[in-house]
């Protein structure tokens, strides 16, 4: 680190360092930038966050391996940890502005966005409890009883966690703590956060900090609602039926695909398992679309999957027979059949940006 770091070149250089697994270089770059007076929040949100976003994009395009993706994420986390331990330049200890809990939806593995929000809030003077990824909702609720924060910031990246998010949102509100939802799972404009009754939604870490600074009203306990009131369409039980029969649906769809696509009969066990996992994902997203009653969740997932498959030279059209087979099995469920039909249409049309799927 002898060269002066220019802020403009920083994201590229950090990208090189994290994908190369070079932690010393990555931490050195960020420390040098801090020493040169680059704002800590700008480092987090305008350097580290875009690098992490690029990790996802490059993985989707099959330009980096799973190992590189995980290594890069781990090193980015270490870089943030170094920043967090870096003594703030001129910050006399002041009483916190308030207390906030940052948590991922139960089952959500993408902790990075939540981590960024937690660090940004800390920088802005909040007392933050960061619960991280894979936080069971009972832990979250117990934590709220213990700490009585001003708000919960609930982060989710993958849409399939929305039903769990709904349970968490109503649980937090029931004990009088408002919920600020964020992350890609809630839709690009927060539409699913609204559908699930979250008090507020924010597009990014700065937005979340602004909402928190403006103050969130505590949900009025007397106005407490039943979770089912948000989503009256659940009365048709289609979501429940699809979730309950998931293994059966996957099995039957596999059998149907083998009938329709002769090439599948020569698949290895590993290949067959991959296919089964793909079908299971389709069923999961279908179920989520049924839960939220939003076809877009399903179609966005399908077009995104098609792009992923295409990047790996797999013909995306194999998805359509899977949808056909599912339609056949779910023929008694009108909402599911409609979603599957819209999915097929989406796959024939131009591709669109979709949600991030687990690597």
């Amino acid at each position, binding site marked *: 680190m002898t060269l002066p770091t220019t802020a403009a070149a920083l994201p590229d250089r950090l990208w090189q*360092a994290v994908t*190369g*697994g*070079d*932690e*010393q*270089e990555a*931490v050195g770059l960020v420390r040098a930038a801090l020493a040169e007076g680059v704002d800590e929040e700008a480092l987090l949100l305008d350097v580290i966050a875009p690098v992490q976003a690029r990790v996802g994009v490059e993985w989707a395009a099959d330009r980096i*391996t*799973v*190992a590189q993706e*995980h*290594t890069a*994420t*781990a*090193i980015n*986390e*270490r870089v*943030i*940890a*170094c920043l*967090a*331990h870096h003594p703030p330049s001129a910050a006399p200890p002041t009483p916190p502005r308030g207390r906030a809990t940052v948590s991922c939806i*139960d*089952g959500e*593995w993408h*902790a990075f966005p939540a*981590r960024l929000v937690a660090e940004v809030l800390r920088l802005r003077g909040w007392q933050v409890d*960061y*619960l*991280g*990824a*894979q936080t*069971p909702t*009972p*832990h979250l609720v*117990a934590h*709220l*009883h*213990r*700490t*009585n924060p001003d708000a919960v910031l609930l982060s989710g990246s993958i849409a399939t966690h929305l039903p769990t998010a709904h349970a968490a949102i109503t649980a937090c509100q*029931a*004990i*009088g703590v408002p919920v600020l939802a964020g992350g890609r799972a809630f839709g690009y404009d927060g539409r699913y956060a609204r559908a699930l009754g979250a008090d507020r939604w924010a597009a990014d870490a700065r937005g979340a900090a602004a909402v928190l600074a403006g103050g969130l009203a505590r949900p009025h*306990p*007397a106005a*407490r609602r039943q979770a089912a009131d948000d989503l009256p369409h659940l009365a048709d039980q289609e979501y429940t039926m699809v979730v309950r029969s*998931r*293994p059966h649906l*996957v*099995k039957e769809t596999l059998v149907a695909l083998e009938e329709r696509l002769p090439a599948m009969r020569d698949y290895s066990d*590993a290949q067959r*398992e991959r296919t*089964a*996992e793909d*079908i*299971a994902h389709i069923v999961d997203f279908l179920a989520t679309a049924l839960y939220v009653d939003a076809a877009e969740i399903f179609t966005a997932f399908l077009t995104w999957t098609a792009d992923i498959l295409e990047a790996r030279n797999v013909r995306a059209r194999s998805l359509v027979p899977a949808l056909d087979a599912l339609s056949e099995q779910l023929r008694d469920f009108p909402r599911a059949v409609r979603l599957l039909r819209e999915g097929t249409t989406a796959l024939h049309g131009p591709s669109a940006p979709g949600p991030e799927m*687990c690597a």
Partner: protein
Amino acid sequence: MLVVDRHGGLVRVNEAARVLLRGAAGGDGAAARVPSWLADAHRRVSDGLPGADPGPPTGTIDDRFFEAHPTPGADGDVVWWLVDETGRHHAENALSDALARSEILAEVSSALLSSLNVPRCMEVAATMAAEHLAEAAVLVGPPQGRRHPLTYARRGGPVTQVTRRVDVSIVPGLPEALQGFPPVPARWINPGDIPDWVIPDDFAGPVGSVIVTPLPGHGLPAGALILLRSSTEQAFTENEELLARLFAARAGSALSAAGLYSEQAAITATLMQDLLPPPLTSVHGVEYAGGYRASQDQERIGGDFYDVHPGADASRSTLVALGDVAGKGLEAAVLTGKIRNTLHALLPLADDHLQVLSLLNGALLTSHHTRFATLVLASVRRHRGHVELRLTSAGHPPPLIVRNDGMVEEVPTRGTLVGALPTVTARTVEAVLAPGETCLLYTDGITEARGGPLGDDLFGEHRLRRALAECAGMPAEAVVERVRMLTAQWLGAGGHDDMAAVAISAPKPGSLAALDGRADGGNPRRHR
């Protein structure tokens, strides 16, 4: 009955109405006068307008309550029939009071029951008291040392909470209310007797009436509530006092439940502290990362455990232990605590794994526990950029090593479990990790995770190996994260056993751990 002409003049009055109206006019024998509410109703009827309220016009004459029914007469006169409805009116008022009261109490109950956090409960109780019972409310909590938590609420205003040293004894009735003994009813006190600290800063005007109410905590002191009204407001009625008592009973129950919960949660947290998996970081130039998931998601501890005991300096071995006690839940967790303590005490002997296992075996056999355990021990030392391992399994799944070329090797160490047989036998195996390579210790909760796309398959060792093959060259925490993520996805919403994994990695040249053995920053993911 009375007849009124279109100008509001009385045309005829029967005997009953005469007595009634004369009484209303003062009983001095002067001309009977029509009460104003009836005069209004008459003008509306004469002008052909609908009544101000649906139903017949009503009003009071003297202390009686009447309904007036009009009948058109000749020349625009109106015949008014007055019906005495006093009894029904009282009954209706009482009913609507009772309804309003129970509505308030239902709202209060659901608001108070929503939180088990004591300050939050106090905030809710004070806010609702100020909203429904008085202009302002002060909730005085039971003393913490010499200080009392005080919650001030004013109707429509913000709530302030402070903990202050205040003299409660000068407020009449407050010491008894706070002690919860002797049982005292809510009592009125003279506004002149209250000290300044009782009055919220922004209270408008002089205090007119004050009530002190104990919050019954059923065996625990829950605090007391002071209700204030300014002198311009009317004093508390009998019904309002009743409501205050009912309110206090609910607030007291909620506060004592929240107090009990907080106390229990604090005790649990203290007792669990040593049973939680420790946060791992780099030690003496070697990266360590651990992952833990208890079988019950409501619990954070279980029958799996791991520890990393750093060597006294970089030339000495670091001892890693990972194991699995038969059973799950709290009882198994308590035994993991004993095993971890015993291993800690045996650290001076850590170089001789068999001796450590034998002594641990003896300790477990002589304890009252009937459970046994499997574990794997690893002595780890960094030497010239490579990491030297000595691994011993005691009835535990053998560790796996991920080589840089993606090969996954099983370390062929075997041994008997501990805590079941009089003697243990085990074979220690040595291995070396090149920079970038990882050794994974894991419990069978991972390989026996049941789920997958078809719902009922074991994750199995071959899937674990396949997953690890993709982890070549990854840092320790990324390997553990990958394994945890894949097993979590495999499980879906299904049940599972306790799961634990520890990765021991030889850092690559670019790693901070490789520099001097202690990466600052540590492991950022374990801030729970």
